[in-house]
C-alpha cells in the first residue's frame, strides 16, 4: 500500500467515501459521478453534497430513474476514455442493470480481445440491520462474483475504503464497489491523508491468531473482531481475516491462515446457499484438505429472500456477535 504521508485523520466510512470521491473528481478531469439524486440532493447519504456546486452539473449528473442506462451510459463513457463512477442508489435496485454489468461491462475487454476496455466503477450501498426491510437491505455480491471480467470489493474500514476506491477508480476494468450502509456512520478509523491505493485482490488479517481462522467482510468483520476479543479473554486465539476483495479473492492469505490454524469459520450476511462461503469452502478443501482438523463451518444469512421490516424478523436474519462467539468457541473446542 503506497501511502503519501504517515499523517492520518479520523473518518467514518461515509466520510471516507465522500473524501475519496471528492479528491478523485478534483484531481482527474476524466472522472465524473452519475446516478439518481447525486447532484442537487448530494446523494441520499449526503456523500456527494456540494459536488455539483464545485464540479458542475456536467460531472455530477442527476440521471433519470433508469438503472440499466446509468450503467450502460457509464460503459459508453468508459469506452470513450472517461472514468465514470456510477451509483446505484441501493444495491436492491441494481437488477435492471444486470444486463449491462454482466453482459456488457464484464465482457467489453474480453469480447473485443482488448480492443476496448471498460474502466468503470459502480458504487452501491448494501446490507441490512437498519430497518431497511425487503428492498433496502440485500447483499448482492453472490449474484455478481460468479462473473469473470468483473471485480468486486467490499471494504468496511475507512482506510480500506479510501485505498480501494482509489484503486477501483484507477482500475482499467469494471469494479463493483460495495458499501455496507450500516457501517457508514458506525465505523470510524484512522485514514492516512494523501493519495494511496490498496491493491484489489488482497485480504487483510485484522487480527492474528493460532487456533481458528475466521473469514468475513462487511459489517460482520467488526462483529467477528468483537467476538474474537471475547475469545481472547477466554484464552483462545482466533485469527480474523477481512476479505475486502470478493473478486479477485485472496486465496493465498486464506490458505496460509488455514494451514496455520487448521480450522475455518466463514461468516457472511448474505444467504448461505451459493454465497461466497461456498466458494471459499470448496477452495480450502481442494487445496488444504490435509491441513483441516475440523469441518469448515459457515455462519451465514438464512435462506429467505430478504429480511423483513419487523424488528424480530430483522434480528432473526442478522447474526448477533454472541452467536459468532459461540460458533468460534465450538470450532476451537472441536
Amino acid at each position, binding site marked *: 500500500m503506497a501511502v503519501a504521508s504517515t499523517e492520518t485523520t479520523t473518518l467514518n466510512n461515509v466520510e471516507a467515501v465522500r473524501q475519496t470521491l471528492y479528491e478523485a473528481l478534483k484531481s482527474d478531469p476524466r472522472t465524473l459521478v452519475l446516478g439518481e439524486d447525486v447532484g442537487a440532493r448530494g446523494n441520499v447519504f449526503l456523500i456527494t453534497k456540494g459536488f455539483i456546486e464545485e464540479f458542475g452539473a456536467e460531472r455530477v449528473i442527476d440521471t433519470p430513474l433508469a438503472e440499466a442506462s446509468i450503467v450502460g451510459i457509464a460503459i459508453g463513457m*468508459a469506452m470513450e476514455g472517461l472514468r465514470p463512477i456510477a451509483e446505484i442508489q441501493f444495491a436492491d435496485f441494481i437488477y435492471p442493470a444486470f444486463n449491462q454489468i454482466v453482459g456488457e461491462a464484464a465482457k467489453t475487454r474480453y469480447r473485443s480481445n482488448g*480492443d476496448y476496455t471498460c474502466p468503470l466503477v459502480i458504487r452501491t450501498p448494501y446490507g441490512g440491520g437498519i430497518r431497511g426491510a425487503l428492498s433496502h437491505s440485500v447483499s448482492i455480491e453472490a449474484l455478481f462474483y460468479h462473473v469473470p471480467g468483473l471485480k468486486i470489493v467490499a471494504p468496511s474500514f475507512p482506510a480500506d475504503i479510501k485505498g480501494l476506491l482509489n484503486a477501483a477508480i484507477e*482500475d482499467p476494468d469494471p469494479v463493483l464497489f460495495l458499501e455496507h450502509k450500516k457501517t457508514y456512520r458506525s465505523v470510524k478509523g484512522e485514514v492516512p491523508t494523501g493519495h494511496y491505493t490498496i491493491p484489489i485482490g488482497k485480504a487483510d488479517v485484522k487480527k492474528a491468531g493460532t487456533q481458528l481462522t475466521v473469514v468475513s467482510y462487511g459489517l460482520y468483520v467488526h462483529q467477528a473482531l468483537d467476538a474474537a476479543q471475547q475469545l481472547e479473554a477466554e484464552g483462545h486465539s482466533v485469527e480474523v481475516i477481512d476479505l475486502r476483495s470478493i473478486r479477485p479473492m485472496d486465496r493465498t492469505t486464506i490458505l496460509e491462515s488455514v494451514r496455520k490454524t487448521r480450522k475455518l469459520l466463514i461468516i457472511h450476511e448474505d444467504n448461505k446457499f451459493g454465497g461466497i462461503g461456498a466458494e471459499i469452502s470448496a477452495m480450502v478443501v481442494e487445496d488444504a484438505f490435509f491441513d483441516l482438523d475440523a469441518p469448515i463451518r459457515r455462519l451465514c444469512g438464512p435462506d429467505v429472500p430478504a429480511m423483513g421490516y419487523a424488528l424480530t424478523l430483522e434480528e432473526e436474519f442478522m447474526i448477533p456477535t454472541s452467536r459468532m462467539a459461540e460458533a468460534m468457541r465450538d470450532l476451537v473446542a472441536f
Partner: protein
Amino acid sequence: MAKAIDTPALERHGLSDEQLRAMLRNMIVQRTVDNRGFQLNRQGKIPFATGSEGHEGIHAGAAQAFHRGKDVLAPYYRDIGLCLGIGMPPLDALLSMFARAADISGGRQFPNHYTNKKLGMLSVSSIIAAQCTHAVGVAYAFKLRKEHDRAVLCTFGDGATSEGEWHESVNFAAIHKLPVVFLCENNEWAISTPREHQMAIKDIIAKAEGYGLPGVKVDGSDPIAVYAVVNAALERARAGEGPTLVEAKCYRFLSHTTDDDDRTYRTREEIERHRYLDPVPRFEKLLLEQGIVSADDIAALKKEVLAEVNAVTDEAEALPYPEPAELYANVYEGTHEPWL
C-alpha cells in the same frame, strides 16, 4: 458519357460522382460479402452467417455521412455494409466469419460482431439495444470534452426500439441534447415478429415525439436520400442541437441468419412483392441513367469486387484458428490468475 436529355436532374445533396461511385461499390461489396457468408455456410465451411440484403442503401448512404477519424459508430450485427463503408477492410469480415486468430476480436465473437477502435467502431454485442446506452455515453464524453466536431451514429433494427434500454438511451440523449443520431434500420421484421406485433404505431419516429427529439423518416432503399437525412442529423448533433431519431425503411430479403428459416413465417410471394425495394439494382439504374457509370463499369466493378472477395475468402480460410490457450487472455488487464 452523357445522360439522356429527359432524365430529371439528380438531387445529390452535395455528393460528388466519386462519392456516388464509392457508394455503389460499397453496396456491391456488401452484397458479395453477405452472399459469400451464406454460401460458405451452405458449403458447411462456417457454421453461421447473418445477411443484410436489403440494407445496402442505408449503409452506403449513412457511411458517406460518417466522418472518419472523428465520429464513432455503435452498430448492430446487421451493419456489415456500414462497417465496410466507414473503412473496415473486407478481409476483416471474412476473418470474422471464419473466426480466425487474426480477427480483431481473436475469433471470440459471432460473425459480423465487429470491433475496431481505430475506425471508431464500438464492439458489437448480440444483446439487442445494449449498444444504445453506450452510444449515449460516448456522446456525453464528446460533449463534456467540448469536442464539437464529433458525433455518434447509433444503429439498430425495429425490434430494438421495444427494449427498455432503448427508451432510456433516447430519453437521456434528449434531456442532455447529446450529439448522437439514432438510426433505425426498419426492415419491418424482428426475426419472425412483424412490425404489427412489435408496436402499436406504424412509424417508429412517432416514439421520438414522446421523448422530445425530432424524428425523420426516409426511404432506406434510396442511398442518396439516406445520406441527406443522416448527414443533416449528424450536422445537427455536431452543432450541439441534440439527437435525432432517423427511421430508414427497407426490407430484409434474407432470413435473420443462416439458422433462421423464414419460410416458417412469411411467403416467397411476400418477399418478391418487396423486391422493388432492393436498393442495389435501383441505385445501379439511377447511376446508369445519370451517366455516372456505364454498364461496362458496373460489370467490371462486379468482377473486380468478386475477385477481391474471393481473394480475401481464400486468405482468411487459410489462416489458423486461435490457440486454445488464447481463451484465457484479456479477462482483466494483465495476466489473470484463474481461480482454478
